[in-house]
């Protein structure tokens, strides 16, 4: 087993009477390609929110490497290398694609503190942003406002912002959600081309994507871990098939 990059110990979160995340022990290896699957309402997004510090856990710990980050705020965790995308786009819609990425880079390198130095003179930032956009085939849209892009390309910007933070752990919450299936391969290609050393955890409903991309799969049901293994193990696990994969109508509805 390779080095563990991010892990949780007995992580739980309740909302009133509802236990959204129940006692989860989870390990994400360095350089992992790990998928998190489970039916709607299984607590996957809540789990991501606990990892990123959007929500405090009711119980349990989150460790990045050896460091306990349970008490750290979201912004501090980002500085330590945890980045994420959202299931529903959270972009600077009125700004250009290039600015969206520049804002993220400026924040990462600490330039955003400087109040009197023109952002336009930080050519290093702009340069880096352009190169990133080029690798994602977004360079031609760099000057467009995000709101002017088709949704599929907006999802790419969502990904670009996360990558711009140079994370060591990247949490992708249904990166292709809402994208017409004809275009979703663009996003998935980009996900596949992510640098090898980033540990990637992806929430995804499309099983074809999961089995193509992931080297490890975790199944969550009812807020708890249900099963974990290689894609092949998960696919052949009869219990998983029963609660999840076997539900043909469910799968059809999300593909």
């Amino acid at each position, binding site marked *: 087993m390779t080095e563990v990059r991010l892990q949780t110990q007995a992580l739980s979160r309740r909302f009133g009477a509802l236990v959204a995340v129940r006692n989860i022990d989870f390990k994400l290896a360095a350089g992992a390609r790990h998928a998190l699957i489970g039916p709607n309402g299984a607590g996957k997004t809540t789990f991501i929110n606990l990892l990123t510090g959007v929500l405090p856990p009711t119980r349990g710990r989150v460790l990045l490497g050896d460091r306990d980050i349970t008490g750290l705020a979201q912004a501090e965790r980002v500085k330590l290398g945890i980045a994420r995308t959202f299931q529903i786009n959270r972009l600077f819609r009125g700004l250009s694609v290039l600015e969206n990425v520049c804002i*993220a880079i400026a924040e990462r390198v600490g330039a955003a503190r400087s109040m009197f130095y023109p952002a*336009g003179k930080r050519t290093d930032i702009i340069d880096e942003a352009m190169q990133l956009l080029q690798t994602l085939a977004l360079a031609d849209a760099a000057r467009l406002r995000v709101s002017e892009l088709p949704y599929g390309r907006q999802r790419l910007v969502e990904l670009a912002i996360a990558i711009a933070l140079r994370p060591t752990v990247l949490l992708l919450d249904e990166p292709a959600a809402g994208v017409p299936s004809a275009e979703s391969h663009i996003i998935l290609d980009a996900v596949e081309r992510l640098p090898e050393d980033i540990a990637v955890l992806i929430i995804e409903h499309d099983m074809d994507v999961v089995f193509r991309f992931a080297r490890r799969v975790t199944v969550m049901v009812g807020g708890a871990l249900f099963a974990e293994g290689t894609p092949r193990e998960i696919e052949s696990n009869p219990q998983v098939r029963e609660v999840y994969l076997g539900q043909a109508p469910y799968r059809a509805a999300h593909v």
Partner: protein
Amino acid sequence: MSVAASPADDAAAAAPIENPAARALMRRHRVHGWEALPWLAGIAFYFAFPDYLSFGCDLLVTILFALSLDLALGYAGIITLGHAAFFGAGAYAVGMLATYNIWTEPITGLLLAALVAGVIGFLSGMVLLRTRGLTLLMLTLCTMALLEQAANMAAAYTGGFDGLPSLPIGPVFGVFAFNPLYADTQYLFALSVLFVCFVFMRTLVYSAFGQSLTGIRENILRMHAIGSPVRRRVLICYTISAAMAGVAGGLWAQTNAYVNLSALGLDRAATVLIVLILGGYGRLYGAFIGAVVYLALEHFLAQIYPTAWQLGLGILLVFIALFARGGILGLAEALWRRYSGKLSRRLRAERAAP
């Protein structure tokens, strides 16, 4: 790269970044020729309308006040109904220091006004800015009402409802005295103050800090998710905005040589909001356009047909909210885009970046 550089951009081709988007971003902070226009107009006004210089002072003060609001509202997206609190704080700081002959020098007086308003902005912002939406609206509104009532209560020092008349304001640089009957010195002083504050703010909004403020306005949750210390940024911005509003208030007190409760009422807060949105917020020059249009209309209409002015203003606001959210400048930009739509797609794409 899929975008070809146009022939006119040969000079930039040597730069490491060849994309027009990158070039636009790298040039955005540079001063354009047309940006001299407002200042030339301001100087021309001095010579062309010598009888309207006190109106001119009001105009300059309103522009400065609207600019300060633009920083908080237009850039950081802090929706406040109580910005007159800081205008009033600055005005009363200058007014009380002058009345009791503690401090009458105008330039340092404005710095003190900025300090007082900035401190109030910082302290109130520290607690208020945690909230959003209606709660924030209410809290800013109540903070302003609180200051207004405090000024009303402390009538022994503030003059209460009647205010402090005939403020003794010292000469600028010890040389240029304010003329109580003819506002020529006041006008030039106000124009200079506005210029300095504008340059300051322009620098600020084109910095990476300013860029991060627009990020907060556009999507605060995303800013958290990229590791931005959002709360601190917003507080810094709010404090600077408050200090600038304080300068505007102090300038108002100096140029009028009086202070009264109208400096911090809902009327003034609503008016500056209207001025800014009329011109177009988040655009630097919206404050200029809005103030000129609003005050000119008010000056000529409100005295003759006060009710018609109010009716017209109401209809205008409804129209802007429904159809022209970018204000006059936004409307102009939309028209410009529509006409330029006949040009190639690439050109349109180039203008899309703000």
